[in-house]
Structures are given as C-alpha cells and as structure tokens.
C-alpha cells in the first residue's frame, strides 16, 4: 500500500511488525518479547527469532505506556507535501520505561481535546511521557505521546 504524495504516510507493516499496529489500533502498546523459558527478552523492531537465545517463540507483552523523551527534531521543508503543510513540526524519540533500549518514533499531542501537533507542547529531552491512543487531529498513526507534566 502506498500513499499519494498529498497524503500523510500510513505505516506499511511487514509480517513481523503487523501485530504491533493491530494492538495499537485497539489502544494497546505491546512489544514483541521472547517466549522461551528463562529468556523473555523484549526486542524491537520485531523479528522472527530472539537475538539472545535464538528461539522462534514470541509473545506480545503489554507495556505500561510510560517513557521519556530521548531526543527530538523539528522538521522544516523541503518535505513531502502533506508534511510540509504541518511544518515546522516536532518528531520525538521515546525510550520505553520497561526497555530503555527501545525508542519509539512519534509525535506529541496536547492534553486538551482537539489539539493538533501545532498546539502540542514543546518536547524536552528527559521529559516523562505517556502513550496516548486518541485519533490524531492531523491523521498521524497511533500511538501518540503526551507529556506527563506539560
């Protein structure tokens, strides 16, 4: 599936990543974890087998949805047209509380209803965030992130 140039890009999942997006659509942040006894390591991006113990058994473990901003950028044009219309916008990288080596790319949303990225709070490195599964006003894919203390 590809998006026309004038639309935001939607995730194009591969076989391994598809469950992440299915759980996200249901409002759950789940990460792939090894299901082998005595291992249980989380891994991201999802992949067929565990790099620690080589087991092909995996499960999708529910996360708390808490994390911290590890870094961020503010994108300015030139950008694809749909993104240029939102620019400048911030993209954050959130390290998960349960697994700081996993850092999800995302966007901040405001705390009120109907706040778009334009009115989203400014990111700060180290700021605590929580996953937010409301539909994004700009149509960006789930999950989003909300500052715990804006």
């Amino acid at each position: 599936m590809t998006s026309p140039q004038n639309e935001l890009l939607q995730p194009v999942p591969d076989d391994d990543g598809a469950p992440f997006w299915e759980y996200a659509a249901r409002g759950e942040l789940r990460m792939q974890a090894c299901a082998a006894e005595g291992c249980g390591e989380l891994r991201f991006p999802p992949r067929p087998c565990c790099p620690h113990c080589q087991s092909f058994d995996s499960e999708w473990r529910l996360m708390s949805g808490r994390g911290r901003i590890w870094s961020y950028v503010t994108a300015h044009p030139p950008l694809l047209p749909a993104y240029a219309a939102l620019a400048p916008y911030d993209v954050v990288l959130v390290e998960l509380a349960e697994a700081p080596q996993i850092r999800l790319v995302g966007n901040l949303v405001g705390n009120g209803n109907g706040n778009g990225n334009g009115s989203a709070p400014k990111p700060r490195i180290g700021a605590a965030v929580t996953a937010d599964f409301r539909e994004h006003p700009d149509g960006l894919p789930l999950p989003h992130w909300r500052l715990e203390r804006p």
Partner: protein
Amino acid sequence: MGVSTLKDVTAIAGIGQTPFAKQLPESEKALACRAILAALDDAGIKPAEVDAFASYTMENTDEVEVAKAIGAGDVTFFAKTGYGGGGSCGTIAHLSAAIATGQATVGVAWRSRKRGSGPRPWTNTAVQLPTPAQWTRPYGLLRPADEIGMLTRRYMHEYGATRDHLFNVALACRNRANQNPAAMMYERPMTRESYMSSRWISEPLCLFDNCLETDGALACVVVSAERARDLRQKPVYVHSAAQGLPAQHHGMVNYWNDDPLSGPSWTAARHLWKSADFGPDDVDVAQIYDAFTPLIPLSLEGYGFCGRGEGAAFTEGGALETGGRLPINTSGGGLSEAYVHGFNLINEGVRQLRGTSTAQVPNAATCLVTAGEGVPTSALLLRS
C-alpha cells in the same frame, strides 16, 4: 593455510573524475564511462586489461553496461557493496581482496550519480522498505537529515556539543573547497554569520550541515603493488581496509540498542587499526564521510582520534584546518566539493599521498578515508 593480509599488497594506480555541477547534460552511464576512462588513462592502463569491477548500491550503472562501453576484457570479479554511502571504501577493499587472492589483476571502482538534477531518494514513497520505515516515516521522520538530526540532538545534549562545533566542520570543508577549482563551492566562502543564519532543515541541523546535491562521477583503478610500481603514477598503497556492521545496528535509524551514538565507525575502526602498522596519531590527513556535519565528531571518536564524547571539542582551535591537528576533507568533502556518495574522498586521499592536492598537507604519507557513518560502513588506510 598460510597467514594472509591485505597490507600494502595492492595500490590505487589511477584516479579519474568528471566535472561536478548541480546539473550535467550527460547520462549517469556516460559520466561513469568518462570517469573510468580518465582513471585508466591516469594509470596508463588499457581498458581491455580491466578484469574486475566494484561498485556500491544506489549506483544505477551496472557492470554489464560499463564493461561493454569502455571495452573491458573478460571480467572475472565483480562485487557490489550495500548501504549507499557506507560502501564507498568497501569497493576498494573488495578489489584489493580480489587482486591479492589472484581472482583479478586490474580493478575499477566507480560512482556516478545525478543527484543534483535528479530526485531526492526520500521523496520516493513507493519503494520505502517496510522495515524500518513503518516505525519512522509516518510520524514525519522522512529524510536522512531528520534521522541523523535525532542522533545529533542527543549527542549535543549528552556531551555539550554546540552549533559552533558543527560550524567548525562546515567551515573546514568550505575553506578547502575554496582552494579547489573543481569544487562546487570554490568561489563561495562561508562565514559564521552565513552559517548561523541559514535556514533550518531538521533542527538542530541547518542547510549548511547538509551535503551538496551533485551531478558527477569518479573512479579509481586498483592493481597489485608490484604492478603499480611500474606505472606512471606514484603508487598509493592500500594499507588496511575494513567494513563495519555493529551488533544490533539498524542503519540510519539506529535507535534500538543500548548505545545509538557508537555507530559503525567504531566497528570498522577496530578492524582497520588491528591490521595496520600505525595508529590514529600517525595519520597525516583524513577524508571523513560528511553527508552531515555531525558525522565528523562521531567519526573522530569512532576512529580513535579522541575519546567518547570528545569529538565536538576536537574540532576547536582550527584542528580540522590546514596546519591543524587533523586536516580533513581537503578537497571540500561532500559538504563543499561534491556529494557523490563519498567517492571524492577516496580520490582526494590519493592526491594527498601523491602530493598533488590543491590543499596539500606537506609530506603527507598516511591518510584515513571513511565511508558513511550511521549506516553499515567501510574505511581505508592509505599510505605512500
């Protein structure tokens, strides 16, 4: 099995290039042929003697086309290295290995690219790979500048690096380009004010933290050291070569491991130095891959010119300029000479060791050349 090594067994005997410009009328194939024929002429080797080719991905001109156009003989070795700009030095490494092991005798590596007049690769939404694009692009992390900008902001936060440090890199490259008539920025000096007031691309990266967009082509000829000594140019020996793909590395979006800021250069460097007779302190001049200014401090750390987190401070006091602690990118690099996926850094390394650079480091006898940091990479130690 005997102990074998690539050390000084092969040499770069010829270099060639086309003009660099925002727009050249000829096709990538024509530019490739011109650069390759120029390199063979430089070496004094007939095209019919070429029996090996090495290129890297995102090269649209393949061996079949190039070989038949230039009039190569029977080709017995051809190889393509992955990961775009990470593969530049890998081409020389592969040719050296092939020649050292008797698979071929005359190798050609090349790069031809119409990036100045062609589309930017990131604008193609149809060919995006699901892994890892699904995790990054929908949220607006679209371009290499965004992906490296993310690491840059963290690097600045952790180690106190500033935009002035990035400016030091941009300025050193620009100053050398101002000495090089072949450079796209030959007549375009840079000031701190022009740098600081340029437009943002992906904060913290501004326009001048990004490489040029160039049409152009370059090529090198690799032969055995023995053969090189009988040719018309002073041989430039391949002293050590390495590739680097670190454990749990993810390419440009290296966000999912314990230490995203120690990239492929660290892995390549360990192997490069292990096989060398000299160390970082003995490097006279370096050509360090500079698609983005922050790749320089990261690479300075990876290749051992300073400690972890010290790469930004290393750039202070004119360290990267002529006469500084480590002159870099002496033809202007990707930032100010031409961005041809780093191949111009190889040719400039050769010129330095021949003594023919437009920004010659006096008596340069050793040169480090690196490929793209932030992707699976490669590197060369050259010596005269």
